[in-house]
């Protein structure tokens, strides 16, 4: 087994172990007891707003390309 496989393979195994261990626990109160949590029951922003922001991002990238 080469060093590449050993390093990244161990990283994958350790990360999976962390995921399966940590995933079982509730998040800390710092995360759960906040007023500005996402309310997954409602969409605060309309799809149009999201689409507009996405479009701005695409146009921005294209404009940056023009100047490079």
């Amino acid at each position: 087994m080469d060093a590449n496989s050993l390093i990244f393979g161990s990283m994958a195994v350790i990360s999976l172990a962390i995921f399966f261990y940590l995933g079982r626990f509730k998040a800390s109160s710092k995360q759960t007891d906040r007023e500005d949590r996402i309310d997954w029951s409602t969409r605060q922003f309309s799809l149009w707003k999201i689409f507009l922001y996405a479009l701005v991002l695409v146009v921005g990238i294209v404009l940056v390309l023009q100047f490079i």
Partner: protein
Amino acid sequence: MSKHGALNTFGRSGNPALRADTFSQSAQGNRSSGGIQATDSQTMTLQGTVNKTGILLALVVLSASYTWNLFFQSGDAGAVMPLAIGGALIGFIFALVTIFKKQWSGITAPLYALAEGLFLGAISGIFEMQYPGIVIQAVGLTLGTLASLLFLYKTGIVKPTENFRLMVTSATMGIGLLYLVSMVMNMFGSGGIGFIHSNGLFGIGFSLFVVAIAALNLVLDFDFIEQGSEMGAPKYMEWFGAFSLMVTLIWLYLEMLRLLAKLRSR
């Protein structure tokens, strides 16, 4: 947000993911079993979602190993292409069904994982043939990102808010738009949007941006799962939570592969 207040809020909602009937179905489940309080066996739990994510990951690896072996036995990309394209298309159909019929997640999410695995195994084989060792690097980095972000989320270091959700969703949609335009341009023979696939500084910068957005989507998935279990969503939402995590992980893995390939081809 108190649990009671949150339940009231969720009860008023029309959101397809966690809407009013999600909780009424959960309540029906409790009534039919004669219980007053929700128990772990009837409602969504973190442990259940993690277990189901493990099952989906195992299914992806199982079907990916089939096309991976087929590719290396034949040494010909043409031999696995029908399975790869078929897997991607069938996976896409199962993903749509899962999104619109969450109650079916227990069946459609594993089928999605199996179909996507066929696609991933073939694509990974092609990348591995071209750049030996790239697949284990992409797997390690993808799972490393998953574990790191889960730690940052659980400890409250990364706190997703509504603005965070807006930015990440918009950026994801923007990337989707760019890929769509590039694909349409490719179909008409204009070569697509060059920088997306280039191994220049801008191409690598773009790939890094996409990897970052895909990684931030994981935080949204964690928050969705955490709140679903807090609110006592129905049991099938464990499959749906695991499915949404899997969709993000597969996207992140593919973007990692592209980024590493760009870096190696320089």
